[in-house]
């Protein structure tokens, strides 16, 4: 593969697009359970970040242990995010109902555990793909700069679309299902493009 960036650019852009849809939409769902005060916002942001952090650490290490299966890891991450996305509206609602009478720390912990899977997967994708590219071009800054650029650009479009378009046409659940569909399409694209079995 001479230039993996060309193949990765579109799916990683789409992945960033879906991620920001989740962030905004899940935040709205969690507000119902947690409230809309500053404490709730902080809990939600920290939960997201903590999951991304764990994913970041895990992604690089996995990539080193399985250097020849990087794209399978990316496929798995996107597929799992998509599957979780489909179930997420009901899961978040269920956990919210289950923990409504619990102290705030228990509610925060339960939601953290719930979102741990998708946020870890989201956090893992960047180091996985950067490591993959560095093995081709030998330049960390060039690889991470390029991938981060395309992923964040997708995220930006996701943020803009949610507030200025998607919420005008669809309700929260449909918007989340849309993001899940994008993740599943990305995983299908990776599967098809790289013919996983031969990698």
């Amino acid at each position, binding site marked *: 593969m001479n230039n993996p960036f060309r193949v990765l650019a579109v799916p990683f852009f789409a992945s960033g697009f879906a991620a920001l849809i989740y962030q905004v939409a899940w935040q709205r769902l969690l507000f119902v359970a947690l409230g809309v005060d500053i404490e709730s916002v*902080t809990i939600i942001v920290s939960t997201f970040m903590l999951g991304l952090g764990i994913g*970041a650490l895990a992604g*690089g290490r996995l990539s*080193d242990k399985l250097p020849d299966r990087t794209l399978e890891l990316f496929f798995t991450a996107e597929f799992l995010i998509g599957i979780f996305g489909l179930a997420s509206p009901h899961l978040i609602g269920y956990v919210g109902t289950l923990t409504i009478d619990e102290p705030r720390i228990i509610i925060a912990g339960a939601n953290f555990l719930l979102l741990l899977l998708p946020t870890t997967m989201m956090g893992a994708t960047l180091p996985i793909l950067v490591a993959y590219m560095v093995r081709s071009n030998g330049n*960390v800054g060039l690889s991470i*700069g390029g991938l981060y650029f395309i992923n964040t650009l997708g995220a930006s479009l996701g943020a803009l679309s949610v507030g200025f378009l998607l919420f005008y046409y669809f*309700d929260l659940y449909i918007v989340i299902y849309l993001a899940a569909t994008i993740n599943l399409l990305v995983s299908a694209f990776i599967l098809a493009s790289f013919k996983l079995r031969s990698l």
Partner: protein
Amino acid sequence: MNFPWWLSLSVGFLSLSQEILWVRLGAFAYGGLPHIFSFVLASYLVGIALGAHIGKWFCSKKMDLYLTGGLVLLLAGIFDLLTPWISSIVLKRPVLLPVAALAIIASAAVKSILFPIAHHLGSSRTGTKIGTSISNVYFGNIVGSTFGPLVTGFYLLDNFTTEQCIILVGIGSMLLGTLMLIQAKSWKQAITVAVVGYVLAVTTMPWQRAGVIEKLADRQNDNKPIRYLVENKHGILHTLVPASGEDIIIGGNVYDGHVGTDMSSNPNHLERAYMLAAVHPSPRRILIVGMSTGAWTLVALGFPGAEHVDVVEINPGYLNIIKRYEEVSPLIDDSRVQIHIDDARRWLKRNPTSKYDLIIQNTTFHWRSNITSLVSIEYFKELGTHLNPGGIVAVNTTGSRDILKTAQAAFPYAYKFASFVYGSFVEIKTEPAEAMRRLNDCKIGSTRAFLPQHFDEEGVAYQIAHTTLEPVETLLSVTAPVSPAIITDRNMLTEFRHGKLVAPQPLRWVYPPNPRAY
């Protein structure tokens, strides 16, 4: 942990802190319009993407990345220091929003240039541990990005003004830049860059104390002076001094109400509250959702037979304001009042056994961010479970027909009076003579709420007592260009589809019809 790891962490911290501050400024400037969050977030992310792209270019060149990074961070710091001044101009008018987007993009880009640089400096480029070394530096960035919102959103904004927080981020960027310059290969170049950077920072000092909040604050049409300004982590409140009459409280830069309960001038339109005293025979337990100026709470306390008033208010800053006005401050010390600083919906869910004769919600405009949780059908049904037999829920619709429709769906009996909707499980009737007697018994403190002339035929008390409440069903049977619909937690109708923001004419075809567009 080496320097690049700390660099990655610090850039994440400063960047996310700055994003939070931009969101706060944008939300304040546009009164909590829900789209502003998307606008700022999208602009900021474009900035981060561009910064990463530029940083990538630096990494591909054979240059001293410590010198380059130090220079970039000094510039980022100077930009931060000027942000209060810049934002006080670009956030002032909607026509300047594209310029605001450019400012936000620039402010994010200058910091995120450091993202690839930190990874380039801190990761091994060969060997079997490439992934691990990359993710270690990336993890540092996420740790910083986690603590940025925590420290800034939770601590700094509760102890410093928004403007001071922005200045602190600017100073942080400049200090981080200086630390990078110390490690540059060429001392001469590093000192030159530092001197130029700090001279620029000092030169721009006259613009750094911009008074951004005062400049963006809504002062109404006649530019009223601000009396009090309260900033905390929950939001920004200010009070205005009108040419005559009672002060006005502005919460999150939109009108909240007047400080006062005088029924002769009646700027708060308190007839909407007194209607409840007129129609309910014995309102002993009352819940107030959203305290704001305290005027409505004071009125409820004076209803004949009022024994206990629970108030749920999300922003404790209102208490600071109320304490400063002797017209409303007595409510704080009234033993019948219990004030709960909490999210109303959460508080209701956690107090399922609390029942009330009256629930009064005079919160804020139907188009503001996250208002859905206080106007959706799910919430109205929750309110219904907190009513005593014969109890009434009163909600300010702020002109939204969707809220009327939603209340009608949640309660068998729903009526409109002025901007309010009253919902109940029993029919609400007005008996003029009885209503006049009850209104006559209403008090503010130990004084009667209404003067004798208020009971004359043209008087406000007489008008309240003789008003026939209009059933919502009748009202909604009138055909409108866009039919109102039931608001749910999922459709967030009044924030987006039927919200304040109406697309300009060339883009109308993209959007579903909005009643405001007619």
